[in-house]
């Protein structure tokens, strides 16, 4: 097991390397460099000082030297300096990262909490009215783009009905640490995460449904019936366990969707997370932040796929390597 995880991590290294090179080159290809932003803030800076600062920051070094320096800093947790906000990127990220992780977790929990029961109902009572309803819902949510759904949710429940706050991550008047503060935080999370979750359930529902329908007619289920296993236990012990297996593999890949989703959700609900930060930074040409965010997202996806593989190898005895 340890060996398997180790090898899986080893396999990530070349991917990470290529990813970092790609991002580094992209960062270099972005119009202007780290100092252009500063120039905008400080118009009095003359060409002479600019050139000197360039030299000092090593921006004139050959690419590979710059890359090595960048990656070395990266490994030390130094993501560079945001020239718009005039503070280290790590500091800038800390709070927003937490917000995004919170939002993503909420979406993930809600997604599974909605999708798993619906998928099971739909698969077990195939062709019943409940199944038809669930399948109908999954078709509609599959077809609906996230940003439109989120906008309509905001329009209806935020503005028209006023049930939920329409922006931010917490009521700014509240003090951190109080009970009301956390309630407010949760309240701000609810509408965006519900919007995200209701759209992302579709994959799991459809997959679980077809897995259950396929597993239902497998020979080993017939063996269990021939053993006299009661119907409820047939599902809990045999069908569901086997059907959940592929869903476990989904977990890691959800992360890609969550990152993309956070960009939309945070922008629509003005939720201060890294998705929103990313859009702002791109527009303000704050490239060190952009680079850091892309790198972190790539890493998160990689870890997600790693998690999926580990989960799979734990639950499926057939995939035990070594």
């Amino acid at each position, binding site marked *: 097991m340890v*060996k398997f995880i*180790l*090898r899986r991590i*080893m396999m990530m290294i070349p991917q990470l390397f290529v990813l970092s090179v790609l991002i580094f080159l992209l960062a270099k290809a972005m119009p202007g460099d780290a100092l252009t932003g500063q120039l905008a803030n400080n118009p009095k800076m003359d060409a002479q000082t600019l050139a000197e600062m360039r030299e000092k920051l090593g921006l004139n070094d050959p690419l590979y030297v710059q890359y090595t320096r960048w990656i070395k800093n990266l490994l030390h947790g130094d993501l560079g300096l945001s020239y718009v906000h005039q503070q280290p990127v790590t500091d800038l990220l800390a709070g927003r990262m937490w917000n995004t992780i919170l939002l993503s977790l909420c979406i993930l929990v809600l997604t599974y909490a909605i999708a798993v029961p619906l998928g099971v109902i739909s698969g077990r009572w195939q062709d019943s009215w409940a199944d038809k309803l669930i399948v109908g819902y999954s078709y509609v949510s599959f077809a609906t783009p996230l940003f439109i759904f989120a906008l309509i949710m905001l329009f209806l429940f935020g503005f028209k009905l006023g049930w939920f706050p329409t922006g931010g991550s917490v009521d700014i008047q509240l003090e951190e640490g109080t009970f009301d503060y956390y309630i407010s935080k949760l309240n701000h999370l609810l509408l965006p995460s519900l919007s995200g979750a209701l759209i992302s359930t579709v994959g799991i529902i459809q997959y679980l449904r077809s897995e259950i329908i396929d597993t239902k007619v497998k020979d080993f289920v017939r063996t269990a019936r021939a053993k006299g296993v009661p119907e409820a236990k047939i599902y809990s012990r045999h069908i569901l366990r086997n059907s959940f297996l592929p869903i476990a593999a989904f977990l890691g890949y959800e992360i890609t969707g969550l990152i993309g989703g956070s960009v939309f959700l945070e922008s629509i609900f003005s939720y201060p997370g890294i998705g929103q930060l990313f859009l702002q930074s791109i527009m303000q040409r704050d490239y060190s932040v952009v680079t850091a965010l892309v790198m972190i997202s790539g890493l998160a996806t990689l870890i997600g796929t790693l998690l999926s593989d580990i989960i799979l190898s734990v639950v499926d005895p057939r995939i035990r390597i*070594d």
Partner: protein
Amino acid sequence: MTFLRVNQLKVHYPVRGGFFRKVIGHVKAVDGISFELKKGETYGLVGESGCGKTTTGRTIIGLVKATAGEILFDGKDLTKLSRREFVQYRKDIQMIFQDPYSSLNPRKRVLDIVAEPLRNFEKLSPQEEKRKVQGLIEKVGLHSDSVYKYPHEFSGGQRQRIGIARALTLNPKLIIADEPVSALDVSVQAQVLNFMKDIQKEFQLTYLFISHDLGIIRHMCDRIGIMYRGQFVEEGTKDEIFHDPKHIYTKRLLASIPNADPLRRQEQQKLRQQIEKDYEQLYSRYFDAEGRVYPLKRISETHSVAIP
């Protein structure tokens, strides 16, 4: 007259493992077998699942690459030929597949299925092509209108005959039949087996007949090779193998065949128990330390056994 000679043929697949997915061993699907086919005979390859009989057949026809050894056909070593050169020999060696369902493309009409080899090798006008295909289809006992139908409109036995018609299109000299009837019901089996015997005479075919069913092998074959874990255990004429088996593995295999006479049940059971006992006691005399059989040793003009 030697027609095809297989010489020390090996097909090994690498097994990867360990930290860096290095090659840590080989699956020896076929491990150094030699035999030859004579013109017009039916040679049977028998063995249990995983013994390498199917791989052997597929290697001869070029679907699987040989790791080592020679396949001599018309004095040419087929394993050394490039794909382009091999094409010339395609016409002479054809194959009948096990599964009559997957071996016919469901999206093609019978006409297009049977004409496929013609289009590759002969430039015929559509009329000539159709005439030739209809002739073949009638030869295998189907109505000539069948050429406009799709495979799913036929039963298993009929599909298998369409497969045979396709194999016959180029007038091959050798046909490799890989479990040609094991997917069929017994009554249909008989039909296909009889038919294969008929066309053998008519087209002067040589068969390499691969099967796990000893009853069918006995019905069809002149000479038989018994395979075990990629190697030959015994080779001989039908009578030698069935009446005078020398290797304990062959004896055990033959004793396992259900006896169609219910009165001789006890007798058969006793024989099996005796052979099982011998198998355990004499194991080291027939198998080496790794559980592999010894190289074949010739004990008569036609009979060879793997004993030290």
